[in-house]
């Protein structure tokens, strides 16, 4: 969705109005782009650069301002390592499962030949994919809460109370269950164009050569789609890994996840002497997300080879 225009930038010829070539206007022509672009680059540079540099610097400083590796050391041991591992695990679960389900759902919609359905799903996906945050927490509590949840009550009526079968909305898997709600539409959104790019003629060519349906998917469909699917899963991974509000409000901070631990250090709940560990976790998250996005960019470039 977001990278949709990357790599397709068509250079336009410059539109320069004819101007008399005096020294003043030459000077103006040389400096105008610099002046016009300056606000944007300064704003972005300060708005992103200053916080990031501050995070990197403080990840290697004690609270008193001395250079140290102890913050990074905390990050790779004990509770903070656990939080980081949990975050990675949660992101893997909530990217692969909705990633695969999303392909099937998108395929069901793309091949349905119903324009109305396609349009409705496009709108719904765009809305639901942006649907993280606290609202999601509260509607899930209303639906699946332990005693008053409306769906829980229904299921209880037919003797299938999920809570008495090991379901818990407020633990790690509960968070994963809720994340599915915005991850699945996100996958549908990013994979639909790729599915639309599968040409009917490829299928026909495979059939003419005697390929079964299975062989078509095994040797044509899936290999062509693979970069798009992997790209989608990477995007979902990043989106899960960065999420904070839903997990925080749903579990009230009881699940050990890296973003929640950062939040705790900001609100002053960190153990004395470990105040700067938040910067180390933030740096770790920045590194993981940067790597994810680099691979996402590569997957997209590979995907555009066959599709479009």
């Amino acid at each position, binding site marked *: 969705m*977001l990278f949709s225009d*990357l790599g397709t930038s068509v250079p336009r010829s410059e539109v320069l109005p004819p101007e008399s070539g005096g020294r003043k206007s030459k000077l103006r022509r040389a400096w105008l782009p610099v002046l016009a672009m300056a606000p944007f680059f300064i704003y972005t540079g300060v708005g992103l650069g200053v916080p990031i540099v501050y995070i990197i610097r403080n990840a290697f400083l004690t609270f008193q301002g001395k250079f140290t590796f102890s913050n990074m050391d905390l990050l790779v041991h004990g509770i903070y390592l656990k939080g980081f591992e949990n975050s990675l695990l949660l992101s893997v679960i909530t990217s692969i499962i909705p990633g695969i389900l999303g392909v099937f759902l998108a395929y069901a919609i793309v091949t349905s030949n119903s324009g109305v359905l396609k349009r409705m799903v496009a709108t719904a996906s765009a809305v639901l994919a942006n649907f993280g945050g606290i609202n999601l927490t509260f509607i899930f509590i209303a639906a699946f809460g332990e005693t008053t949840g409306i769906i829980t009550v229904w299921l209880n009526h037919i003797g299938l109370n999920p809570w008495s079968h090991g379901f818990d909305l407020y633990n790690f898997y509960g968070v994963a269950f809720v994340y599915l709600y915005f991850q699945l539409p996100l996958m549908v959104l990013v994979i639909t164009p790729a599915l639309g790019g599968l040409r009917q003629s490829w299928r026909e060519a495979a059939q003419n050569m005697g390929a079964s349906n299975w062989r078509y998917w095994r040797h044509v469909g899936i290999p062509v789609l693979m970069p798009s699917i992997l790209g989608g899963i990477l995007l979902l991974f990043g989106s899960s890994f960065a999420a904070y509000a839903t997990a925080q409000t749903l579990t009230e901070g009881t699940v050990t996840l890296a973003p929640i631990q950062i939040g705790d250090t900001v609100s002053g709940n960190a153990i004395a002497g470990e105040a700067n560990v938040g910067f180390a976790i*933030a740096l770790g998250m920045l590194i993981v997300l940067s790597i994810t996005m680099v691979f996402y960019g590569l997957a997209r470039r590979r995907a555009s080879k066959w599709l479009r």
Partner: protein
Amino acid sequence: MAQVAESYYFENPEVNPQLPQRRRRRRKKFRLWRLVVLVVALAYFLAPLYAGVKFALQNDLGKFSFWAFTSLPSEQGFSGAFFLSMRLAFFTAAVELILMVPTAIFVHIRVPKLRPIMDFVTILPIVVPPIVLIVGVLGSAPLWLKSSPYLLSIFYVVLAMPFVYRSLDAGLSAIDLKTLVEASRSLGGSWIRTLWSVIMPNLRAALLSATALTLALVFGEYTMANLDGWTTMPVWIAQFQQSDAHVTLAASMALLIGTWLLLSLIVAADRSQSRRSRRKAGTP
């Protein structure tokens, strides 16, 4: 366009009777699994929404009532939170547009070489999630700025940038900017006039969706506002949960419906824009 219609005719067995029967039968077989997938998905996505609406339309005794919605405006702290979010949203949208619209137009007209760089720079905020950004912001912002809620707005501008720039970039690519500018300039229009009465009206859809995205982002943002200690709408909703669950749900649903409307507006705007660019592509 003609090609699309042609392939639609030839490849769609429901329209073209000459296609082999085997294909038709396969489509029939597919229909069952498609139905199952769609019904399960529909149930999963509608169930929590239904529960949310139903819960919001109950009073404390569990009876149907609009009470939670009608009492919402008078709940303690609601109006303060609402107007704070409102102020932040307008300030953010104003700064965002003043910063990004001239920049995007300038890049398209004068320095198209910079477009790949712009694509790269504007995607960077994606790598920096709010929870990471706020740690750096709270540490590095000067004290006078930290005491103002507009500190949040300054960084919401950065968070919204990937969406806003992409929407403006798509809008600018869809119109024939070069011809428009040359026509206006050769008719004696000043740059300001060209910008205001020629380019801007053609960018209406893009501007609309950029604004809607920004407003939706500000009204839904919990992480940074909460950790910066400002009670915006989402923060208020989360805090009020301890007082009354029905009112919380009502506020949540109201926020959600508002966001839903805003985002549907974007989809509609996108569609009118793509229709226009398709028309443009059709006429050589």
